[in-house]
């Protein structure tokens, strides 16, 4: 339509004139619309020239007295709006006239103070026109509106607009009137061009608006706190209007000079309207404003729509930056509002807020007092809030706390130097972070895996969840941690550490919380996990040395006896060993023990609390390491041992905490795994171990740590550890009764390590010479000769032959004796250690405690494995152990016998010759007789029998007997005895496993003496009848041949088939 706008004023005038004239004559809607239609075809420049001319008929219509149709006025308004939007108002008179005419249109004709009861559309049109008018006014005239003389008119307009905003039902009208107000205050933020008021103009504006401020505040306060259903746009606009007006009136720059009286000379009554912004006025106003502000903040800070919350942030920021000095009362609430939004769920609000906070903090305005006061009251109310309100509210309050610290920044230090503040903050944290120790699960979770298990996947241990008395949400805990870190980051480290250490020592009630706080404070002080801008770097350049000395003093406290060695398992659950306090050797130890609460029976809660305390302290050590980085390596000499000690704790939580602390240590000190950590620092560990071994009653865990070290180190540790092993042995000798189980554990792990470090090279040397058995074809004559010789031997000469053999066996020992005094050869360290340990074993084998005997048997086996490469050392030791071992084999608990038998098998393998005679004389008779005795019982037993010890013993003996016979290369008589004892077990009535084990015995015996086996088996059952090849020969009759099928048949047949199988193979 506007493609060809008329550019020539004359043509345009001619074009528009008829419709203008017509309108003046006949003010009808149609004519107005005709005019406005024509207006569209005229260019803006021409329109500007003809502005007065065009506006005249429109204004004329408005001025016609009497009631008019609403449609007409609305049309007029729209036409005027069009004109005004596209032109400028250059003369003050027309601005003033238009302004007042438009205001008249809004108010009701009978009561000019109230808005007219016209239709929404009309109101909207008028408001839009008014808005357009203000926008189109020239900068040099528009500010005349705010001169004192205009106050009545302006006041009327403002109150009308406010009334519309407040009472109008339609949202559009409300919003439009608020927008109108904004433009009227020269604060409009729409896309149009605006006049930027200079300082003087702002002053003018401020002075004028001061008159209306009470009204504005009251009305807008209503609007803002109005029904949520009015929509966020209205609320946001109302807030904007309010804070812009507020900002203008109370601006710091304006209030610095008091309003002068200069203009008030000839105003007459109007002068009463002018407000003089004196200090007293300022004070009264700011108090009133503070109340309104409180109201506004309270109903918008939790507003469901984020734009409202965003606007609150804007409001706070605007006011803080504009008028923080003139309205002191408001700064507190404003900061609180700003800080509270710092963790808003809407990212836009959050970002805006943190930007605003940063700007506020950066401007360096001195809010310290207000902030610290706010902080104080917040912290005072914190415990109550934490007890009574919901998680949402708690989180909010904590975020505010955090926000304060953030704005205070380096000034936190100053705040903390106030004793009152420090006291409040620390106590509040203590109360808030109280842990819940009632959970039974804490203590129930016990370590299942052994302490020596340092697998690499310990990294995956999740951090432990703590249960707090006053909150459950993890977000709350993380907010608290952030607070502590922030304190540490900005505060004076020594002051904080001192304060919280004081609390830590002050009472058991605070101890865990204080430790939690200390942990975070240190981490924060190192700048870890503290959110901050990179722009504000290191305002608190914490000295690494300070950090280190603080950490050292904290760790010292953590690992002191009374804080570290707390019972974590109740004595009822625990074996008596741990806390059966032995004779305390001296006063010092006795005094120390009195510190331990172990003397009383701790309640479940105490135990839980202890567990948590240790966990927290362990976490702390890990955190400190991360804070200090590689410098922590030096501190390992004091902290690694305690951590490792706890890694083997019975309580699962504690041991897990210790493992994750170790992982932290690895990370901080640059070790690839806990294993490397232990190995590289074994010297530090050994230091503590050897000192603590001497004081087993205070430090009962040294053996445990040593065991862990053995498990994870390699042979290079041996020279270092050799003297500690001597310490262990000495300690074992000294405190023989109380500590044996622990020392056995150490010795066991030591021997296991030795076996691993020095694998026996002689492992497979002793494969029995099998080729003798498999001679392909036996010369019958030779066989008979041999047989005769054997028989003779058996009848008499055999005895003689055994003697020289016996001598042979004894000779190495006597050699050793002869060598000994001549020159004491220096044994390899591991051999020497194994020897020493084995010597202890020979004593401990007869310990009264069955579990110890079992353990010692295991150790013995390992010792033998280590010593096997030095037979000269091994045999004398075996000789010394033999009586005790024999006792275990023959006269001990059914649990011990199989274990002892296993040792015997190992011994048989390594020094068979040495043992042959002893076994055949002292052991075999017992074993075989017990086998025979048990045979009847097991044959008649039901399936339950397989769970008895007797059965297990039978099984173990049968399983081991075969190889043992082979290894010892037993003689005929012994074999007879073995076969005799085993044959009954071939019965199908025996438990199946025993049958199998028995079969294995026979298979082994087949290797030793095929013929004897064959014969014995055939005695029981002979499947084949042997026809003599020549009638002269007597028929072979074996006892088994004519027996009917019996219980033994199956197994015997199976074995006999195995006899045939190799022969068939040989034949082919």
């Amino acid at each position, binding site marked *: 339509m506007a493609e060809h706008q008329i550019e020539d004023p004359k043509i345009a005038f001619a074009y528009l004139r008829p419709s203008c004239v017509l309108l003046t004559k006949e003010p009808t809607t149609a004519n107005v619309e005709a005019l406005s239609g024509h207006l569209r075809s005229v260019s803006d420049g021409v329109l500007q020239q003809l502005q007065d001319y065009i506006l005249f008929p429109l204004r004329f219509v408005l001025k016609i007295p009497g009631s008019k149709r609403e449609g007409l006025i609305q049309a007029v308004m729209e036409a005027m709006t069009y004109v005004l939007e596209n032109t400028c108002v250059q003369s003050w008179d027309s601005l003033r006239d238009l302004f007042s005419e438009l205001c008249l249109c809004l108010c009701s004709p009978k009561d000019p103070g109230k808005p007219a009861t016209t239709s929404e559309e009309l109101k909207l049109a008028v408001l839009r026109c008014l808005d357009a008018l203000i926008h189109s006014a020239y900068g040099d005239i528009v500010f005349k509106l705010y001169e004192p003389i205009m106050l009545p008119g302006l006041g009327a307009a403002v109150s009308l607009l406010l009334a519309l905003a407040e009472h109008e039902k339609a949202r559009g009208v409300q919003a439009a009137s608020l927008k109108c107000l904004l433009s009227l205050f020269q604060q409009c933020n729409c896309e149009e061009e605006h006049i930027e008021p200079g300082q003087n103009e702002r002053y003018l504006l401020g002075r004028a608006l001061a008159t209306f401020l009470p009204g504005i505040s009251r009305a807008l306060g209503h609007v803002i706190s109005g029904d949520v259903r009015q929509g966020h746009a209205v609320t946001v606009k109302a807030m904007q209007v309010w804070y812009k007006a507020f900002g203008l009136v109370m601006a710091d720059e304006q209030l610095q000079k008091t309003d002068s009286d200069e203009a008030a000379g000839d105003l007459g009554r109007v002068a009463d309207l002018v407000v003089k912004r004196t200090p007293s006025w300022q004070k009264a106003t700011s108090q009133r404003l503070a109340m309104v502000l409180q109201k506004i903040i309270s109903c918008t800070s939790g507003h469901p729509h984020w734009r409202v919350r965003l606007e609150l942030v804007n409001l706070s920021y605007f006011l803080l930056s504009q008028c923080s000095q003139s309205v002191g009362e408001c700064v507190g609430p404003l900061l609180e509002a700003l800080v509270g939004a710092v963790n808003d769920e809407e990212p836009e609000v959050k970002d805006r807020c943190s930007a605003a906070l940063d700007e506020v903090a950066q401007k360096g305005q001195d809010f310290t007092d207000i902030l610290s006061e706010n902080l104080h009251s917040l912290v005072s109310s914190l415990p109550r809030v934490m007890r009574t309100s919901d998680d949402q509210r708690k989180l909010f309050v904590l975020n505010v706390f955090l926000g304060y610290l953030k704005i205070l920044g380096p000034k936190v230090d100053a705040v903390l130097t106030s004793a009152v503040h420090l006291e409040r903050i620390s106590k509040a944290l203590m109360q808030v972070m109280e842990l819940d120790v009632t959970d039974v699960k804490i203590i129930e979770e016990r370590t299942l895996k052994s302490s020596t298990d340092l697998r690499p996947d310990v990294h995956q241990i999740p951090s432990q969840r703590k249960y707090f008395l006053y909150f459950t949400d993890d977000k709350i805990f993380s907010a608290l941690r952030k607070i502590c870190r922030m304190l540490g980051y900005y505060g004076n480290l020594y002051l904080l550490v001192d304060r919280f250490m004081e609390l830590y020592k002050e009472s058991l009630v605070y101890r865990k919380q204080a430790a939690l706080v200390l942990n975070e404070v240190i981490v924060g002080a190192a700048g870890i996990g503290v959110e901050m801008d990179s722009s504000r770097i290191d305002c608190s350049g914490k000295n690494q040395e*300070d950090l280190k000395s603080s950490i050292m003093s904290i760790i010292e406290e953590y690992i002191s006896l009374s804080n570290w060695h707390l019972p974590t398992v109740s004595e009822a659950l625990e074996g008596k060993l741990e806390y059966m306090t032995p004779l305390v050797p*001296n006063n010092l130890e006795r005094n120390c023990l009195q510190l331990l609460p172990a003397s009383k029976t701790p309640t479940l809660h105490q135990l839980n609390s202890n567990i948590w305390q240790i966990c927290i302290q362990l976490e702390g050590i890990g955190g400190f390491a991360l804070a200090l980085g590689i410098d922590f390596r030096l501190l390992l000499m004091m902290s690694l041992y305690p951590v490792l000690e706890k890694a083997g704790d019975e309580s699962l939580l504690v041991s897990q905490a210790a493992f994750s602390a170790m992982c932290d240590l690895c990370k901080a000190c640059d070790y690839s795994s806990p294993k490397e950590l232990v190995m590289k620092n074994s010297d*530090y560990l050994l230091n503590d171990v050897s000192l603590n071994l001497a004081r087993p009653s205070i430090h009962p865990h040294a053996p445990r740590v040593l065991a862990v070290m053995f498990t994870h180190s390699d042979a290079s540790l041996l*020279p270092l550890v050799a003297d500690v092993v001597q310490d262990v042995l000495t300690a074992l000798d000294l405190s023989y009764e109380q500590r044996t189980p622990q020392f056995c554990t150490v010795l066991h792990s030591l021997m296991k390590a030795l076996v691993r470090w020095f694998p026996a090279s002689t492992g497979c040397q002793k494969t029995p010479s099998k080729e003798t058995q498999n001679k392909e074809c036996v010369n019958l004559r030779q066989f008979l000769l041999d047989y005769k010789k054997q028989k003779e031997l058996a009848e008499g000469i055999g005895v003689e032959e055994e003697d020289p053999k016996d001598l042979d066996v004894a000779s190495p020992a006597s050699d050793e004796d002869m060598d000994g005094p001549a020159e004491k050869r220096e044994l390899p360290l591991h051999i020497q250690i194994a020897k020493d340990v084995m010597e202890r074993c020979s004593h401990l084998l007869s310990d009264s405690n069955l579990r110890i005997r079992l353990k010692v048997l295991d150790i013995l086996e390992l010792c033998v494995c280590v010593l096997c490469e030095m037979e000269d050392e091994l045999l004398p030791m075996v000789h010394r152990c033999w009586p005790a071992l024999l006792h275990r084999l023959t006269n001990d608990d059914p649990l011990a016998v199989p274990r002892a038998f296993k040792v015997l098998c190992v011994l048989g393998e390594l020094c068979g010759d040495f043992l042959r005679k002893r076994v055949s004389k002292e052991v075999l008779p017992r074993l075989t007789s017990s086998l025979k005795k048990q045979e009847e019982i097991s044959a008649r037993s039901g399936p339950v029998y397989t769970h008895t010890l007797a059965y297990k013993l039978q099984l173990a003996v049968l399983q081991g007997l075969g190889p043992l016979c082979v290894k010892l290369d037993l003689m005929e008589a012994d074999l007879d005895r073995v076969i005799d004892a085993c044959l009954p077990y071939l019965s199908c009535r025996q438990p199946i496993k025993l049958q199998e084990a028995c079969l294995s015995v026979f298979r082994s015996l087949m290797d030793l003496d095929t013929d004897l086996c064959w014969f014995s088996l055939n005695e029981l059952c002979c499947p084949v009848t042997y026809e003599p090849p020549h009638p002269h020969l007597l028929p072979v009759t074996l006892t088994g041949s004519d027996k009917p099928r019996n219980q033994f048949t199956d197994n015997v047949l199976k074995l006999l088939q195995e006899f045939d199988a190799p022969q068939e193979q040989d034949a082919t």
Partner: protein
Amino acid sequence: MDNVGPPSSGPGRPQRSLTGIVVYCGSYRIQFIDVAIVMSRPPPDPLYILRGSGASVNTLHFSCGEDGPPLLYSGSGKGAIHVWNLTTRRAEHVLESHAGNSVIWLHTFKNSRSRFISQGRDMRVCMWEMSEDRSTVTDSLLTGSVGFCQCSLLETQPGAALLAHPTEHMEEVSVVEMRSWTPVCTLKPDSKLGMLMCMKMWQADSGPVLCAGYEDGSLVLWDVSHRRPLSCLKAHPEPVMCLDIDVCKQKGISGCSEKILQSWTLDNQQNLQMYDSVQMTNPGVSQLRVRADGKILATAGWDNSIRVFGWKKLKPLAVLQHHTDMVNSVAFSDHQDPPQRLLAAGSKDQRISVWSIYSQS
């Protein structure tokens, strides 16, 4: 029996406790010394133990001067010299020296940390220059002595020092100027005193003097500049094993293979005079050291224990037991700060124990 209470009369004199209460206040570590009187408090444990010397530890020497970490030098029976960093408690350098022969004496120089001197059973005295990566013998002197007598070093002024060392003649002491190995004098007693056992040289007003202990139990005080004996004292019936002198108090002490420690004084005419003696439970002392502040005396006993005495009245203060074999050497550290002062003992059991005792004055 409860041992805490008012001190009873009798020989069991109260001891000052060895520990105290430590309070951290700001950056200051304040230690309140526990002045409560506690009788027969158990002796403390060693602060730490240095392991890994691989052979018996024969001699120890501290170097804890101003710059750099505090160091402890130790010489082993297999010719290894360990330089222990006392901050990390680990050996910083391990030097093979004296062709695997036992190292019997080590000393450092006040002015330079990088140099030290060692004496071995290979009859040599070696000067060492230590650098970051390698340490070398820069100079050596063949003394010809096959005995156990340790050398004595006297730094007369920065850069210049006198070294007294035993020679191939058993009873003779030779003093040389260190820089050029120029012999200054040889000191040989006129009468038959037997082998030279131990000695110490120091700077007296009149010039350097040297006190030497001999096989027959006598001590001879030598005036080094005039090469003449000043006085002689028959202190022990047995060979003198070790001696030390507190130069300030003009008082010395010596030990032998018996149970007795004999202290003696020097009067104005430089005459040695018997002063006091103290009995020990077990015989035999390898080394004696008086701490630099003249407060306490430590002995290295053949009975595996370290004994601590008050230096003033030779009052027995403590028996430190940790070693499982003979103690060969004791040394006090030369820390600038008295509370940091340490005592180290090296033993035949291959360990070095480090103690912090009576460090609060």
